[in-house]
């Protein structure tokens, strides 16, 4: 069970949290002004990096707040967390760079015993 840093309550066990997808994808203010492609990108296109990933969590069985966190998807370690509606803190590795490959089937991690 992971430990997850809630920016309000502190470090708490994973069982209290719900994952809520990639962070910093704001709902367009005027959805009607988007063409189908742009709307589809908003709905479905995600960066899915292998590495540091800004994502949303909710402390469902705690303070109930949605918040953002940067987690490394390769090591499964949280780097930081911050309140919803605030920018990704300076100094945290930026979102997926082009050379960060998308998650592939990592046999080293998932291979069977």
């Amino acid at each position, binding site marked *: *069970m*992971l*430990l997850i840093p809630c920016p309000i309550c502190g470090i708490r*066990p994973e069982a209290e949290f*719900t994952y*809520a997808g990639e962070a910093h994808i*704001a*709902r*367009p203010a*005027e*959805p*009607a002004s*988007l063409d*189908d492609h742009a*709307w589809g990108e908003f*709905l479905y296109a995600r960066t899915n990096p292998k590495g540091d990933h800004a994502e*949303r969590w*909710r402390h*469902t069985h705690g303070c*109930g*707040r*949605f918040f953002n966190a940067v987690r490394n998807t390769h*090591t*499964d370690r949280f780097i930081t967390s911050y309140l*919803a*509606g605030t920018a990704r803190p300076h100094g945290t590795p930026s979102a997926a760079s082009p050379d960060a490959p998308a998650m592939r089937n990592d046999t080293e991690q998932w*291979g069977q*015993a």
Partner: protein
Amino acid sequence: MSLRFSFDGRSYLGEPGDTLASALLANGVRLLGRSFKYHRPRGLLAAGSEEPNALVEVDRGYGARTPNLRATQVEVYDGLVARSQNRFPSLGFDLQAVNDLAAPLLSAGFYYKTFMAPRGAWAKLYEPLIRRAAGLGRAPDVADPDHYASRYAHCDVLVIGSGPAGLAAAVAASAGGARVILCDEQPRFGGSLLADRSARIDGLAAPDWVAAQVGVLASRPEVTLLTRTTAFGWYPDNMVGLAQRLTDHLPEPDPTLPRERLWQVRAKQVVIAAGAIERPLVFPGNDRPGVMLADAARTFAVRYNAAPGQRAVIATTSDTAYRAALDLQACGVEVALIADARLRADGPLPAAARAAGIRVETGMRVLATRGRRGIRVAIMGRIDLDGRVRNREWVRCSLLGMSGGWTPSLHLFSQSRGELRFDPASETFLPGASAAAERSAGSCRGVHGLDDALADGAMAGSAAAHDSGFDAALPAPCHVEGAAQAGWTSPVPARRKQRRAFVDFQNDVTSKDLLLATQEGFHSIEHVKRYTTTGMATDQGKTSNMNALSIVAAELGRPVPAVGLTTFRPPYTPVTFGTLAGYSRGVLFDPVRTTPVHGWAAAHKAVFEDVGLWKRARYFPRGDEDMHQAVARECRTVRSAVGLFDASTLGKIEIIGADAAEFMNRMYVNAWTKLAPGRCRYGLMLGENGFLMDDGVAGRLAPDRFHVTTTTGGAPRVLAQMEDYLQTEWPELQVWLTSVTEQWAVLAVQGPRARDVLAPLVDGMDIEAAAMPHMSVAVGSIVGVPMRLFRVSFTGELGFEVNVPAGHAQAVWEAVHARVEALGGCVYGTEAMHVLRAEKGYIIVGQESDGTATLGDLGLGWAIAKAKRDFVGKRSLDRADMTAVGRRQLVGLLTADPACVLDEGAQLTEAAAAPVGTRSLGHVTSSYGEATLGHSIALAMLADGRARLGETVYAQRPEGAMPVRVVDPVFLDPKGVRLNA
């Protein structure tokens, strides 16, 4: 006091502190099991949890039968009943030992090669044969009668293992007040010190020093001491799984006690002091009973006073076996020979052995062994550089103690994702860089000597305490005398090719299998492992992995690290399922949610169904009624008189704030601004993708207050979605959400007499149609209890939903039920509710809709307030595909045979014949037998369904296609006359 126990039906005596292994050895029993594949007779190889051969079954006699226990870990108690495994008909005479003669057929990869064709033969012929022939214990065939406990625990420092390093670590770590948990898989703390007859620590004999340290630990209030507790798995963020055995060692355990307890320990720091495992030598006949690890033989003799043989030969590549020889000799075992494969052996221990008069030969190794069901002769010899055998010599013996050096136990370190580092000097892997907050201490990181291990443990313990925020002065070093000091390293000498020397004893993998695998092109240890199954048995290759790796590396002519090491995975030793399940069995498997009226329903013989975690009354049979009869009666009663239904499981959310209506406008497709207080609306909620997510009636209680209902299953999801938008997209809105699902019980009163039922009960409220039309809400009281009264209908009849605080629900229910009965009505359950709503064409989210249905598909497009600039999902509705021709639309179906009830999920086709490849036009979503309409009905999602009204399509069934007429989904009262009565 002696303990009487039985093994394979024969009775023996053991001593307190014995394991089954030591007690059987003391009784002269050497044959303990048959091997997995070849059914070869096997005895003990080891003295601890790494034992691969001696797997036994323990039978508690009340259905509690546990297979595959290591005899070296089974504690003897009075009345213990144990049996050997994998033998037929008996251990001494095993018919399937013929497998051994067929060994050439059973070599590496035999599964893959032998049984390629014919395909069908696998399941019918080979697989059952192999299953019977090869295997471990018998799985229990009844539910586990024991119960199990589970606990979370938190500490500053978890110390795993209580040998010298672990004990020293725990004492050092806890000195400054840190919370420390010390666990050990054995019944007593001390590890190797329990079998140390020569060392003195701080002037105390080793076992006495252990007792003193345990005393110190026990006196510290923040220390938790756990014996019989295996640290079996490492999980993220320093959570370590411990399996604590609580009653298996007791003759008559208190049945209220759990058998085992799972500890989920969250440790700020972990000290792994898991020790090292001695490595067998690989030579033909190395699996014969009586051939065991030298230190295991020593441990049996010293710690358990169980002589592993009368006359011993010791074969070694390391100095520690000399200590074994000396201790065995001191315990009365005749040591005929120490054969050291190394060319020189000059350390203090070899010198001591020579001084003790033991014959020591260097450059000598075991060539083979002889003896039926146990070793009688060791054939020794020297091998020159040309590979020729010289000085062959037969040595009579009943014990062959072997030592190929020591393998640090890296399992938990590796599970923590630490990097393994190969140490060429000792030809072992050692812990490298850590990935978790842990450190290894003692022989599990190659620090072997007693004084070094003690110092290493103390250092690790105080460093761990320091890193978790405690003062931790390093304790004064222990003064150690008489310990085995030197020569723990042991390069494995090159071997000549030899036949059938066992490497993995538990899976019966030989050196020959490994060579075959490399010859056949498997060059990575992960592939060799899968091909030969080496290291894949329940012991996870504790005694075999390094030998397998050395052999493969030597054969490939590559360094060991280049061949790689297989991955270690939990559990370290097998953990019974009961321990992992813990309390989650029976009624505690999942919460069983019941409504406040559940007790009444149960007392009135309701048949319940599971809806998520809820128990809901499905129908209330009377007399001999079956379900269909009861449901039909309940439906008819609702249509003709009145019915009472428990709708308490509906999700309810109170939405409050100045911007409540604006929030509703954004969340739902409907228009809410102009909905007056006192009125309700059927709300539909989409996902941002435009598909239906949930539905429910919302009533406006005040300009700033809505009482919203959701589906039973959708309640948490809807609330979470609302919170999500409020917190992250529209934080400027003055709106707050509170779940009131469980605050309000809901009594649905439905039917032409519904108003007559309630009118006398509602404390003077006017509930006539003029004051309370369909889709209205009022606040008042019923039989003195506060009430929110909704006039809504999910049946098509005049209906009310009485919301009362849950604690008063049963009293109100009884009052309402008395009126219902008096007016010729009855209670009804979810099944009748489903039929009644289907007759009216009302959908159930998740039944008619499946996450790809639009409101248009479901005939609900009328609800969309198209003038609204935006709401969740609106943009997606403009996609061309959402209104394309060919989408499946909600329709009703009438079967040609009115008695026929279609299967829900049945596919619809254009023609009766539906050969493979026929395109489905849609499927049946709901289907019910005749209730009130004189015929069965079905709802379906059908391609272009609304354009097909009146047409006939075919519903596919196993017994043949059924013609069905496509009709409007509203079967009853399309004008809503009954509804608005």
